[in-house]
């Protein structure tokens, strides 16, 4: 127990080193800062991928370590995006409105400016009034606090309701999925106050940074994403390495036993659920300015399930597994669905990857679940020679896919 945190977690150092190298490499090759080998849009894709890796780390915490298969974390991700998007859109529109009103003979009052912004933003949903949820949209500080506060609060309320009535396992998964569906349906309405299915758009234009070209801006966001991922990774590693980590792993493997040992299982789960929701919110707040638009379709339950797919393919119960899964699957998906992959001509039928990639993904997911429950992370076990003890056919525990560090080392 006297060993330092990093000594106990060598993977953290390796991960940080790889991430730093990757960041430097991308910066050097970017259009904004270096040779211009990588296009601006691809830098954005990489930056987005890093934020997806961050939410995958959060997902790994709740699922891989605590055994809560949450199908709602992408809702928190989307909410984070909405929160930052409100400020971006408000401030940007304010600039435009002030510029256009500057030419009028009488200088506008503050109220006139706000009214004009309202007309600009809510014209698409047939309204011009600012709904109450936009009350703090003019303040970057408050919206940045809301980026973590809103997902955190939602997760706290939902988690409290769910955990105290001891909804567990697949029931909890379905309940979180229902929450996600409810939220996305709510946001789809025009009178939700967040522009209905139009969502918030034009987020790639950062207010007051008009003079900075997108090529530079994209690298800045890439750095921010990399930094957030690094911090999030270290934080997650710190959480799971101490006693807290042992307790949540215990909850995953046998919740009743941990409860009988006197731990407040609900408290631990609620804390973890809320903290990961906040991390998801931060990831979303970094993702959507790079994507440029956030709309309710992003929050649909299927997105959260894809998140679970990434973590499962990467390998649960190991943080680097989540990162690898998210980066690998999302980049490969981008490659195949972007139409860059060459079609395969079978003579009688041409396989177009845009159409067939989803099928391949779905089937490979079934394959991973059946034949390689440890995912890509399992390859590292082969490499480091870590083997699971032979229990003569009996399961290691209820959740075979997750890595059990303590038990797995013979």
């Amino acid at each position, binding site marked *: 127990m006297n060993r330092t945190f990093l000594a106990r977690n060598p993977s953290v150092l390796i991960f940080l080193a790889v991430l730093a190298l990757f960041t430097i490499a991308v910066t050097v090759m970017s259009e904004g800062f270096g040779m211009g080998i990588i296009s601006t849009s691809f830098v954005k894709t990489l930056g987005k991928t890093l934020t997806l890796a961050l939410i995958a780390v959060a997902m790994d915490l709740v699922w891989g370590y605590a055994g809560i298969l949450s199908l709602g974390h992408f809702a928190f991700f989307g909410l984070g995006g909405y929160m930052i998007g409100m400020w971006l859109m408000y401030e940007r529109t304010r600039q435009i409105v002030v510029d256009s009103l500057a030419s009028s003979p009488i200088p506008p*009052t503050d109220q006139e400016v706000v009214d004009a912004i309202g007309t600009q933003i809510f014209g698409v949903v047939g309204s011009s009034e600012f709904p109450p949820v936009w009350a703090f949209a003019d303040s970057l500080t408050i919206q940045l606090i809301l980026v973590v506060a809103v997902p955190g609060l939602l997760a706290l309320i939902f988690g409290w309701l769910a955990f105290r009535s001891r*909804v567990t396992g697949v029931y909890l998964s379905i309940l979180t999925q*229902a929450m996600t569906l409810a939220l996305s349906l709510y946001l789809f309405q025009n009178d939700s106050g967040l522009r209905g299915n139009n969502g918030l758009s034009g987020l790639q234009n950062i207010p007051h940074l008009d003079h900075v070209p997108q090529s530079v801006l994209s690298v800045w966001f890439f750095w921010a994403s990399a930094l957030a991922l690094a911090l999030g990774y270290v934080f997650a590693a710190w959480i799971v390495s101490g006693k807290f980590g042992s307790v949540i792993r215990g909850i995953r493997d046998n919740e009743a036993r941990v409860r009988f040992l006197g731990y407040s299982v609900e408290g631990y789960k609620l804390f973890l659920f809320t903290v990961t929701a906040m991390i998801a919110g931060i990831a979303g707040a970094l993702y959507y300015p790079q994507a440029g638009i956030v709309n309710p379709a992003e929050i649909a339950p299927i997105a959260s399930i894809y998140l679970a797919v990434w973590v499962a393919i990467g390998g649960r119960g190991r943080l680097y597994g989540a990162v690898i899964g998210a980066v690998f699957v999302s980049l490969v998906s981008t490659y195949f669905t972007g139409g860059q992959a060459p079609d395969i001509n079978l003579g009688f039928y041409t396989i177009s990857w845009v159409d067939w990639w989803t099928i391949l993904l*779905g089937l490979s997911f079934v394959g991973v679940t059946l034949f390689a429950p440890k995912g890509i992370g399992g390859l590292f076990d082969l490499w480091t020679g870590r083997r699971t003890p032979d229990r003569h056919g009996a399961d290691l525990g209820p959740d075979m896919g997750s890595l059990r560090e303590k038990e797995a080392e013979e």
Partner: protein
Amino acid sequence: MLKRFFLVLLAMLLLATQAFAQSEPGPMQTVLQAHAEVIAESSRRTIGPAIDAVAGSGLPQAQAVLEAWQAKDMWQRQSDGWFFRAEQIDASTYRLIDFDSGDAIGEADKGDLTQLKPNAGVRGLLGTALVQFQLLDPDPARRADALTSLERSANADLLAPLRASIDPEADAALKARKERLERLLTISYDPDEAARIAAIEEMAGDLGVDVRAALNPLVATTLRVYAGEVPGGINVARVLRPGSEALPRDTAYAMLAEAGLAPPRVTEGDVRAALAAHIDAGNVGGVPVAELSDPARRVGAYTALAAGGLVPAYRTEAEISAALDAHRFAQIYAEPSPAVTGAAEAALTRISTKVGLNQALDLGLDALSLGSIYFLAAIGLAITFGVMGVINMAHGEFIMMGAYTGYVVQQLIPNHTASIAVAIPLAFAVTFAAGVAMERLVIRWLYNRPLETLLATFGISIALQQLFKNIFGTQARPLTSPDWLGGAWVLNDVVSISYIRIAIFVLAMLFLALFLFIMKRTRLGLETRAVTQNPGMAGAMGINPGRVNMLTFGLGSGIAGIAGVAIGLFAKVTSELGQDYIVQSFMTVVVGGVGNIWGTLLGAGLIGGLQKGIEWLNPSNTLAAQTYMIIFIIVFIQFRPRGIIALKGRAAGD
């Protein structure tokens, strides 16, 4: 000899009449000639007596005349001014037909004739005059047509002919229609107040839209403003006070301003325009332009301008109050008689109470139908998830496969009834096979890892969805229901339910019976229950758990396929069809209580009823209804975590 001579003379006379047209006008021609000038003038204002004379002549040919006239088939011969019906033979020659005899009396050149071209107004009068004939027409179809046109465009003049036509009516259905229409026209047009009130009271309990359409104009009001008290002799509905909810102060004052009873209020836009118009060397009213972004400075600048007499002064609150106090705002009925409007208001209140009750009934039927759709979608899950405990995220895709099976069968068998009859067992077979394959290949390896079952079946779900999208494209495919399922069962103008929804309800009940039969009365059901409770012990008793699981899973999937055919009949068949139902289906099973079919039934009823109830509170927004329903379910799970009907004891498993 003499007799013969007379005969020849008579024949010659007849020939002469044929040749020189009738020298003696027939009775109808006499009537027409009496009004020849008016008819030729053809003006809406003066034509009345002529039409009345024709219609009231009592001659059997009156209807034919009016119809010819209305159809612009009546011509006037210029030589003697007589009227004929004319048929065109070729470009310039017309055959003349006499109204009285109905015989062709010869041909005439177009140049010798003048066509009577009644304008729309005259044609309307002719139509009104014709109604009394059409209402008494021997052909029931024409009488029905006349009634329909009467229902569409009623007016006061038609009331008398309609009343006259009721007694001779032989057809009972037409007679009932005529009587109903007579009541409605009485409400709207009868000059006698007592008769109108009697008719209103008689129709007060009626739910028909036409009754409300007849009553609503009677209680229509316009908002008027009067200086001082409201004058007498006006049928006042109510006097409104400015500042009340029905009449906000701003609206009231705007009315005053519009009526010229008070100077208009100075709006912010006016201030802005006025300020912009009076900029003087960078200053407005002594205030620098740059400072005008402050609202207080703007008021100062405007007041200064007003003091200089350059712009109208602000209206102060006191002035506005005084102006409002000096006037009365009242809603005035268009209908002058208070007795009639009072009766109409009372009748409408009674009708709206009754409509409300019927709407509740209609809502109940809607909820029942939605509940049975959810039940149908969820019943397969009640087997795979409820009984076996397998989370099958691809359940929705099985529903979708069933719907596509129905679509494909319909392409091969054009007869809709036959195709549905084939599609239902075929859909069962297809999804049963798919379910069995999935159970054998994937699910049986994951029975003790439920979370991973969820993910693996999700993988299958997205693969199947994309596969069907690749095969059938993204556009919706139609699955048409047979004709005998089209239409709706209409109880009255408020309550109705389409036959297809009734069919789905019946199908849901059939499935419930089937499920109960299989689970409680067959060997498979017994074995299924044994295997799900304790697979090891069941195996020791000689049951093959693998086979039972396979068959049970196939059964649940097969039922999903049949549900897909039913759902496809009213929803568009797309590859995302199942996705729309999957969360609701799981909710239905969870809310109802896992492992109990009655719970699933209650859950479906609860969710369907709840959704319709919320939709009724906020009809414009079905998305909100779904949102609130899910939130309700999340809260509901707090109080009954194991659903409405919770299994107790050993059957509960853990």
